[in-house]
């Protein structure tokens, strides 16, 4: 028995609706493992090819097959690519969730569904488009085993007809999806798509208001997920040792990287690899290898998610204290513990910033787009080697695993910054060195690599107390001097950290501070607040930690500053509390979302309206 009730609303008719162009969300509800990913990607790409800004978000279970999955595609002529809460166009393919999916729709939405589900009996205020999927798929897919997969392409055809998506764009998207080598599979899928289109054109008169119209907002852009973008960034940053342990949602970062490296980093003359990738036995080993490799002079990295970060804690502390570079990607998911492995959050900020026992702190980058995943990967490797310390790049599942529209990446022109490394010639000239001596006043000593052919090259690295010559020491003054120098180094890192992106409105009394994927929801929310309440806001998007002075300046310019957090405990705000003056902290307010879905603009707007009393 369903607990859902039919909302009493006006019945839908074709006459009563206005047209809504390039501003809607399609949600495809399926069962995971049913092969709907191709149909969804093709649909998203076809809209993209028509020049309309689009985003796709996969809400999937932590499971291989048989559980509900929702894929949402948002088309927005305004360029809003964050999640939108309301679904306008539902494709109900999962009998398990179909009733609830339909009942959750706003009035005026449209539903494509498999005819036997008889969903049209549920409501009168939405537009229903029934189609006999099984009957339609049989003639276009003679091989019964493939029907389950090809079946999904039928809804692409039906949607193409109803939303006025050019079938030629669907065909092109299919070819891109399958590549030239799988032309047969592309043809089979296109056949199903055409069958859906024809069925709809003959049997489904359009009554809903939604449609796609060609624009020119996506020319030259690419579609890519954040993990792949970060992987590409690593390759062009000259990564040489990659260690990892599989974990959702970060696995695809290294898996994609392996593909790129095989293509572009095997020496053409010798056939030898200019990189090493090791799938470790666990995250203790993957971070241990990354730190060992960083010590040995490699550009080393690992990639993980929250549970892996927890496991890496001890060795990250070693990296901090012994001053060893490594880059760690954290593609955040919902914690604590196993949490919701396939849902998104920004819940590792506090634990990562201060990861490991004793006094430790670590720089973090906050990419908000594939483009920034690419560039910040490069920044992170430079920062790690320049400051000889572990550096974190904080993605989240939404950024890492979903497909995003992006400007194409620019080729990095800045030479790799390998930091302060003394070669044999330098040692000959200098007559020796003290590993942890602050020669330059920036808190960063000079290091040597093992296998440097000079009798003065060696030093002893340890996670135990040491003096500036790297000798074991338990002396109070040695310990304090060392810890104070590490603090100076952290201040130097602050000076080198990427500045935030500030958008100040001269009249704004309210400011919004956020990082990463909160960007899209915040940008849209600011428009909502302006449009619906006539209130201007300013915004500051953080691109890294430690915070730079621009953040304090921004806070002081506004009466109230809302810190947007995708976690329960306001972790970004908590990091500010650790270092700001009470007067500045008093201006800070919190907006938090921690439901596991990508943050949407309405959630932020509602909170601002509530807290501001608008």
């Amino acid at each position, binding site marked *: 028995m369903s607990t859902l009730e039919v909302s009493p609303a006006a019945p839908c008719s074709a006459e009563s609706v206005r047209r809504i162009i390039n501003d809607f969300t399609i949600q495809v509800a399926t069962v995971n493992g049913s092969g709907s990913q191709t149909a969804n990607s093709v649909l998203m790409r076809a809209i993209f090819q028509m020049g309309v800004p689009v985003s796709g978000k996969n809400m999937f279970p932590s499971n291989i097959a048989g559980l509900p999955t929702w894929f949402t595609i948002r088309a927005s002529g305004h360029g809003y690519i964050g999640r939108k809460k309301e679904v306008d166009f539902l494709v109900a393919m999962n009998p398990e969730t179909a009733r609830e999916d339909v009942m959750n729709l706003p009035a005026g939405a449209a539903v494509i569904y498999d005819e036997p589900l008889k969903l049209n009996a549920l409501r009168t205020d939405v537009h229903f488009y029934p189609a006999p999927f099984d009957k339609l798929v049989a003639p276009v897919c003679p091989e019964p085993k493939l029907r389950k997969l090809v079946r999904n392409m039928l809804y692409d055809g039906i949607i193409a007809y109803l939303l006025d998506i050019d079938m030629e764009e669907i065909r092109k998207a299919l070819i891109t999806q399958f590549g030239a080598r799988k032309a047969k599979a592309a043809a089979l899928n296109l056949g199903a798509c055409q069958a859906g289109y024809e069925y709809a054109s003959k049997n489904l008169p359009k009554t809903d208001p939604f449609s796609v119209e060609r624009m020119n907002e996506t020319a030259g852009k690419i579609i890519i997920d954040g993990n792949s973008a970060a992987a590409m960034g690593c390759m062009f940053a*000259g990564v040489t*040792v990659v260690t990892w342990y599989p974990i959702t949602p970060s696995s695809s970062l290294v898996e994609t990287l392996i593909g790129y490296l095989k293509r572009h980093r095997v020496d053409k003359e010798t056939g030898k690899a200019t990189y090493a990738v*090791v799938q470790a036995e666990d995250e203790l080993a993957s971070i241990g290898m990354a730190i*060992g490799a960083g010590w*040995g002079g490699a550009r080393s990295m690992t990639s993980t998610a929250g549970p892996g970060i927890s496991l890496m804690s001890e060795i990250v502390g*070693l990296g901090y204290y012994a001053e060893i570079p490594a880059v760690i990607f954290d593609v955040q998911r919902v914690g604590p513990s196993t949490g919701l492995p396939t849902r998104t959050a920004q819940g590792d900020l506090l634990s990562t910033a201060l990861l490991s026992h004793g006094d430790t702190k670590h720089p973090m980058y906050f990419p908000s787009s594939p483009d920034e995943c690419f560039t910040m990967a490069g920044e992170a490797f430079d920062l790690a080697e320049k400051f000889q310390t572990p550096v974190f790049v904080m993605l989240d599942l939404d950024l890492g695993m979903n497909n995003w529209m992006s400007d194409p990446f620019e080729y990095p022109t800045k030479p*790799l910054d390998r930091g302060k490394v003394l070669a044999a010639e330098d040692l000959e000239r200098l007559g020796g060195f003290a590993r942890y001596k602050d020669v330059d006043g920036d808190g960063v000593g000079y290091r040597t690599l093992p*296998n440097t052919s000079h009798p003065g090259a060696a030093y002893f*690295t340890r996670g135990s107390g040491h003096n500036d010559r790297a000798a*074991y020491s338990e002396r109070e003054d040695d310990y304090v001097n060392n810890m104070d120098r590490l603090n100076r180094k952290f201040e130097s890192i602050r000076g080198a950290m990427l500045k935030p992106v500030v958008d100040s409105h001269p009249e704004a009394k309210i400011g919004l501070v956020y990082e990463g994927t909160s960007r899209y929801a915040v940008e849209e929310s600011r428009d909502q607040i302006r449009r619906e309440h006539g209130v201007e806001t300013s915004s500051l998007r953080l691109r890294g930690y430690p915070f730079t002075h621009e953040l304090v300046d921004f806070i002081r310019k506004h009466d109230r500053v809302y810190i947007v957090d995708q976690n329960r405990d306001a972790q970004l705000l908590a990091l500010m509390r650790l270092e700001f003056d009470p007067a500045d902290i008093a201006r800070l307010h919190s907006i938090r979302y921690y439901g596991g879905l990508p943050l949407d603009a309405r959630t932020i707007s509602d909170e601002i309206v509530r807290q501001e009393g608008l």
Partner: protein
Amino acid sequence: MSTTLTPPPPKKINRIGLEVLSYKGGKTTLCAGCGHNSVSERLIEVFYEMGIEPWKVAKFSGIGCSSKSPAYFLNLAHGFNSVHGRMPAVATGAILANRGILGIGITGDGDTASIGLGQFMHLLRRNLPLIYVIENNGVYGLTKGQFSATADLNSTLKTGVINDLPPFDCCSLALEWGATFVARTFSGDKRQLTAILKAAVSHNGLSVIDVISPCVTFNDHVGSTKSYTYMKDHEEPLHEVDFVPHFEDITVDIAEGEVQDVKMHDGSTLRLRKLDRNYNATGKFDALIALNEAEKKGEVLTGVLYVNPDKPNFLDMLNLDDAPLATLPESKVRPSRAALDELMEELR
């Protein structure tokens, strides 16, 4: 008064012109008589005698008394005293980064058989080129005398506590998990330890050397099976181990009796003058059986238990560039602009 001056005796140097002083380490802080100090002394001799450039060596360790010892030999080599039980991962990363390194890892029974057992297994699986010395005393010294996982069943602590759990035999485990060089020796057996270490230097892969190294403070009493007395009474050598480096002529040492010569990867020879005529050091199952039988008899079998010089090491498996990855120039590690353009085009 004599008027003739006698010239000072020429300083003794090795084949690359270095004195033994160049191979020394810092002053040990371990207890006087600790077996670990003998291992450090042997390492100094071995690297000196083989004429290895000390700055080519990198020393790795975890945490514990054993892990302190890299500070007590080869001051001219880089050292890394890392985290308890995680030395294998750190060494793996460093050697991948910098393949010119001759890596030596010093661990103890706590590091290898307890907290780091998993990393030890996976290290074996990868056959990383590394000399892996277990300074095995069956006891946690640095935390003042608790049993380790290699302490024998029914052995006693100084406090009288009896061990009621069976031990791990690191050599048997190493054999099971795919080791390519497994040896057991006793820190007090200078000649055997030296020969085994030299062979390990020449081995192309991971060499596991389990050195029974008595703890004079916490585990050298009656009732301990890792004491000097027990080892002197129960050590059962399989063979006399000789090692002839590639730069020496093997004919200098013509042996009598049954001899097994193993040709090492670098052209040197590991010569095993068999005491047990049936023992074959290239047979993994022979080794496992021998260990099993010795255990039943309460003997500690020493010597090179197994060697396989032919299995590819981890760097070969990864098809790594011949030059160290650490110092590859930017031109080799950053693909061209055309490569990025091509990738972008595929995503449009």
